[in-house]
């Protein structure tokens, strides 16, 4: 499963993308965020305020309770500021 990070989440994590293989107990986007936060200080810094982080699975907006099963690409990013 491929993870993408954008904007200040990318900067805090220190990379733009990575391939991961989370344990089976990680079922939802929220589970994934919790698991990522346990991987080190940089992830705790990036995901410390869950309510600000947005996510997309395979390029479609999702919520924290969305299951990640079957996802090829999961992206995390701050609230959007385009336009």
């Amino acid at each position, binding site marked *: 499963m491929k993870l*993408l990070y*954008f*904007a*200040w989440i990318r900067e805090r994590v220190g990379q733009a993308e990575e391939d991961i293989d989370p344990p089976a107990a990680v079922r939802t986007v929220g589970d994934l965020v919790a698991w990522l936060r346990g991987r080190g200080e940089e992830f705790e810094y990036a995901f410390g305020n869950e309510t600000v982080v947005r996510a*997309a699975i395979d*390029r*479609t*907006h999702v919520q924290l309770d969305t299951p990640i099963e079957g996802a090829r690409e999961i*992206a995390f*990013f*701050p*609230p*959007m*500021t*385009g*336009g």
Partner: protein
Amino acid sequence: MTMDEQPLIDVRVQAEPFDVAAEAKRLSAGSDVGAVVTFTGICRSDGGRLNGLELEHYPGMAENEITRVAEEAARRWPISGAIAIHRYGTIAAGEDIVLVVTASAHRGAAFAAAEFLMDWLKTRAPFWKREIFADGTAGPWVEAKAADDDAAGRWNLDKAAE
């Protein structure tokens, strides 16, 4: 074009500048086009404080999401066409960032569809702006505004776009 024809929908995400007049002209053709609305979003210097902006985006998802909302606009209003172009990369103050063009037989539909598209772009399209100070150094990431969420909220957008 007549109402039975498919509206022309064109969405582009690009680094290059765009030509507002040329895009508007594309939607002005057709015997039943009576109203063309353009919206151009321009990079502000904020009174000289900024050199410009750096715009990051999510390639692929940006095009998908804008296309989705353009199609939704075409379902909600009888428009003959909608064009949306959003730039990314380094944008100097005074340069254009985003363009929306809509066309319809009547002005109400063209105005509403253009505003709908812009409100949606601001809050849902995966772009992130960072300020570049006048001395060229990187400033902070721009924070999302509650006012933009309010503007998007009036269209019942979540139901529509998901």
